[in-house]
């Protein structure tokens, strides 16, 4: 298993947001976390990446217990998280953003340079804007930069929070192509999506979260048949009735 989350609970202060979450994702697969706003999806991703730590339960990545590992160390295991909301370093240039992405390679100048070149090849539109500040890029370009940056670490597990959030279809398309090719090259992908269609086309496996609990765990196609779940979130239910 690439990722095993067992019995994970988490609270912000006195407010519990995750209640005994279980999920397992096999190597090379794509998994999608779906659910309403505030269901705890992003929180779960933060726990996987080590930015926060569960109040109980455990997280294993490639069999290794990472429950209490700091984000810096989890990243070193080959896990990359693309946080929601176009997470670039807005005041740094495109090139500097990528240099930060290659922070772990900083002692090897040649590998660093090579991986920066690769990243720029992924999204040619960025190559022309090397010296531009990331904050001045368009929304789609910022998301491309963020994705290119996290891919520089050549992650074995890529965790993405809301890839398509507020982006134009064309931008989503080129981002998706890159995620697909990374997956084709063997990277396991876990993503949080609001768009069911997108999740269905991308993921083999899905979990449906509501108010901190897993209500569905199975192949993505089966989720589409579960009208009772989608009813609570999506308008589809309204028209279907």
């Amino acid at each position, binding site marked *: 298993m690439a990722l095993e989350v067992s019995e994970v609970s988490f609270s912000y202060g006195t407010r519990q947001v995750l209640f005994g979450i279980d999920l397992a994702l096999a190597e090379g697969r794509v998994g999608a976390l779906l659910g309403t706003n*505030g269901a705890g999806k992003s929180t779960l991703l933060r726990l996987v990446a080590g930015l926060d730590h569960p109040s109980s339960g455990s997280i294993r990545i490639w069999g290794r217990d990472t429950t209490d590992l700091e984000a810096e160390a989890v990243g070193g295991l080959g896990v990359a998280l693309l946080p929601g909301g176009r997470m670039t370093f807005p005041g740094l240039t495109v090139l500097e953003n990528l240099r930060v992405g290659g922070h772990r390679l900083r002692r090897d100048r040649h590998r660093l340079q090579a991986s920066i070149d690769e990243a720029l090849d992924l999204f040619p539109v960025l190559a022309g804007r090397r010296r531009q500040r990331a904050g001045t890029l*368009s929304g789609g370009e910022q998301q491309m930069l963020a994705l290119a940056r996290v891919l520089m670490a050549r992650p074995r597990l890529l965790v993405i929070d809301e890839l398509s959030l507020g982006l134009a279809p064309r931008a989503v398309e080129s981002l998706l192509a890159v995620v697909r090719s990374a997956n084709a090259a063997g990277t396991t992908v876990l993503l949080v999506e*609001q*768009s069911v*269609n997108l999740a269905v086309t991308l993921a083999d496996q899905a979990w449906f979260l509501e*108010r901190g609990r897993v209500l569905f765990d199975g192949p993505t196609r089966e989720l589409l048949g579960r009208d009772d779940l989608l009813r609570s979130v999506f308008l589809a239910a309204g028209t279907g009735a």
Partner: protein
Amino acid sequence: MTGPARLELRDLVVGFGGVRAVDGVDLVVEPGTITGVLGPNGSGKTTLLDTVSGQLRPSGGSVHLDGTDLIDYLPEDRAALGVVRSFQDCRLFPELTVEEALMVAEDARRPIGVLAMMLRLPATRRAEAEKRARVDASLAAFRLEGYRHTRVDQLSTGTRRVVDLAAIVAARPRLLLLDEPTAGIAQREAEALSPLLRAVHERTGATIVMVEHDVPMAVGLCDHLVVMEAGRVVSAGPTAEVLSDAAALDAYLGASAEALGRSGP
């Protein structure tokens, strides 16, 4: 002015940097209705509320309340006109007690004169007594007496929502803006919120505009729905009509349907 207010947005645009969070919204909300604003994350719903309540200044277009252009009104001036709102995080005033938080809402309607208060003028004392009586009534109506002396930051999110609603009612709203009233609260509390909101609507008679992710709840409560996507209104009208609108469906199932059609299975 009393009675529910009419809200009219014309060609409203709000931009941050290169991103247009609200991109040309036209919307009319009739007095006394409950309108639900739906849409995926980042579609500009909260930004829309912010421009109506005055936290954000739009970069274009206008906000009219009963024909009055609100553009140059501060949030507190809008509150004086009856535009009152709740916030998603529902922080309220962490270090005040529930009673004090409700008193703040009363104070806002009838400010305290500093000197008058110190001198304990009869009129001031009477006003203070009236405020207290109102707060007492409101605590009773919302069944919050048990929390009277509890600090707001020690309440559960659900109870804090109720306190927030009580404070909002105390502010005598004519247009009530609610930002995700069910956010962050437990399932049982969320179920209890619908009747409470209906009660608030009856009690105040205000026009209500609410942003909500819990679709069944919004459908049950609202007589009108507005569906937003990427800063634009994709569908608006009576609830039943919007529910059968294909555009609204698309907004929820994925903005990039056509992109997907071209790029994969």
